[in-house]
């Protein structure tokens, strides 16, 4: 695990609140706007940034993130340019962890070793690659860990106690609990089920557990943050970006401020969550 990731989770835990993890799609709707969004996230209260890598066939994503990926690809975004986004962000922010999130094929085509070297140079701390389960760890997970990049794994409601140890074996950074079976952008399930699931995972690992899929409002963030070490928000941010664009899909003056306002609200939500739990 990178020192940066470990430090950030430790610092936030010391504040007695969960981590706010924010996802957006690199290059949506264009390179410059998404760089401005990325820079705005920590200022608005995000603790960890998940930087989406667009892919033509995002099998595990709902319509919102699919469309964001299509906008980014149309705008000329590539894996190389997504690494460049990370690098430019890192020049001005040495402390916020960056996790690249996407699918394996663009990385495979880029070349695994070259990708890992370039990701390290760009200041990337972790990877979430949706279509690489533990059975495929030799492809990217093991080489990434060897170079000091975290490989963050998704656990889901179908990941039962029999399977959890295998899923957690090579996971580092944090565990991303997908709170439901489904694609990104689906509705939020019962919070008490989430608390139970977080407890189940924590019985198997000392890593922080962040919960995502379905978190849209400050209130959701507050409720989930009561039991999880971190709250992941993705689709809500992507939708906020989409709603600010022109009909042709171009950025407007409202694009970056809209994201900032949303994330500020979510940040207030996670900051209120442990207070809520203590009540």
């Amino acid at each position, binding site marked *: 695990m990178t020192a940066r990731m470990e430090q950030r989770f430790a610092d936030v835990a010391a504040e007695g609140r969960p981590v706010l993890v924010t996802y957006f799609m690199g290059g949506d709707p264009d390179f410059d706007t998404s760089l401005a969004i990325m820079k705005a996230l920590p200022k608005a209260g995000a603790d960890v940034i998940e930087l989406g890598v*667009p*892919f*033509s*066939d*995002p*099998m*595990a*994503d*709902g319509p919102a993130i*699919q469309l964001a990926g299509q906008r980014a*690809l149309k705008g000329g975004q*590539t*894996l*190389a340019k997504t690494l460049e986004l990370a690098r430019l962000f890192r020049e001005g922010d040495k402390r916020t962890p960056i996790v690249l999130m996407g*699918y*394996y*094929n*663009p*990385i*495979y*085509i*880029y070349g695994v070793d070259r990708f890992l070297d370039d990701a390290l140079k760009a200041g990337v701390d972790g990877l979430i690659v*949706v*279509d*690489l*389960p*533990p*059975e*495929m760890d030799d492809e990217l997970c093991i080489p990434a860990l060897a170079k000091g990049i975290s490989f963050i*794994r*998704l*656990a*889901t409601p*179908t*990941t*039962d106690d029999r*399977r959890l140890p295998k*899923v957690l074996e090579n996971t580092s950074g944090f565990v991303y609990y*997908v709170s439901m*079976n*489904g*694609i990104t952008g*689906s509705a939020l399930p019962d919070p008490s089920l989430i608390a139970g699931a977080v407890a189940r995972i924590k019985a198997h690992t000392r890593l922080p557990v962040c919960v995502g899929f379905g978190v849209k409002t400050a209130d959701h963030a507050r409720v989930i943050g009561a039991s999880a070490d971190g709250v992941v928000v993705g689709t809500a941010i992507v939708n906020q970006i989409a709603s600010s664009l022109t009909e042709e899909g171009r950025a407007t003056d409202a694009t970056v401020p809209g994201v900032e306002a949303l994330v500020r609200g979510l940040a207030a939500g996670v900051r209120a969550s442990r207070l809520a739990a203590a009540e």
Partner: protein
Amino acid sequence: MNQSPKLNSFRSGPDEDGRFGVFGGRFVAETLMPLILDLQDEWNEAKNDPAFKAELEKLGAHYIGRPSPLYFAERLTAELGGAKIYFKREELNHTGSHKINNCIGQILLARRMGKTRIIAETGAGQHGVASATVAARFGLPCVVYMGATDVERQAPNVFRMKLLGAEVKPVTAGNGTLKDAMNEALRDWVTNVESTYYLIGTAAGPHPYPEMVRDFQAVIGQEAKQQILEAEGRLPDLVIAAVGGGSNAIGIFHPFLDDESVKIVGVEAGGKGLDGDEHCASITAGSPGVLHGNRTYLLQDGDGQIKEGHSISAGLDYPGIGPEHAWLNDIGRVEYVPILDHEALEAFQTLTRLEGIIPALEPSHALAEVIKRAPKMGKDEIILMNLSGRGDKDIFTVGKILGMGQ
């Protein structure tokens, strides 16, 4: 541990991780992994269960109409003046193509697993029709994902699926063809994983699908081998089949892979030519990558983004190919060649006029390759071609191109 297929056989793959050489594997979201492992266990049990085999054979004989005939195409052979041409007539199966072989097998598995809902993807609609058919036969609800473009160009099959009680969901993402339908089916599966069985139509996707679909389709080659031995007293010199995802091809190829004297050729959709992007020749014009659960040859750009393919035939319109074909290509056991849209269309007309058989546009690609090769072969040589589907679904598309009017 990784276990390589036995070196003295081309038929022992995949290894226990689902790999054919470097191809295949299980590249899926974690949500699906437990289910895929369950499916594998169920499949391992079923394939060694005599009761499962007996039920499959019974339904094959009385529901599908197996064995399908082996037909000597006398007039086509005389016209081309070379090798003797035999067709394995999978187009005579119930529902009109080889797709039903796999669907019957998989729905029996779904039932064993206690699944209560079937989903499928379809391109030409043949697999959708076969899925809707077996779902009706076993009383299970069925949702078929189909690209919006394909819904339009394969209207008769859409109607058939609806009559059979399936819900057809048009997919507008991307170009609205098979790849997009498969993405959407995977999304449905991830969401409804507890209740739902994903009935994949081709020998691709995450392990164990490529192996399982192949084994259900291998009945084609097993029968054909026996039939040609009865008819000619020897094996064919050449076996040919069209390849989209590749299930009809692997079905007829697999039983012949270890017969050294048999040359094997897979025919890809060359579309409007390999120079541009309007083709679906994943092996002859693509490169290895990872999509839809497996590593295989794909049509993609330098950033690893998957391209939309093109073919006159909706059933070949897929930018990938089953992983076993990718491996058979790399080790040189099977030769893969492209056939262009217009060549397939000419072959379609030739067969219709000479033999009174209207083939689907998919096997018309294989037929075009037969037409190229047969005249160069001796009269004592034998070609076996998989006539994998009938052309009823294509007559409007072809009529429109030929300007035949209504």
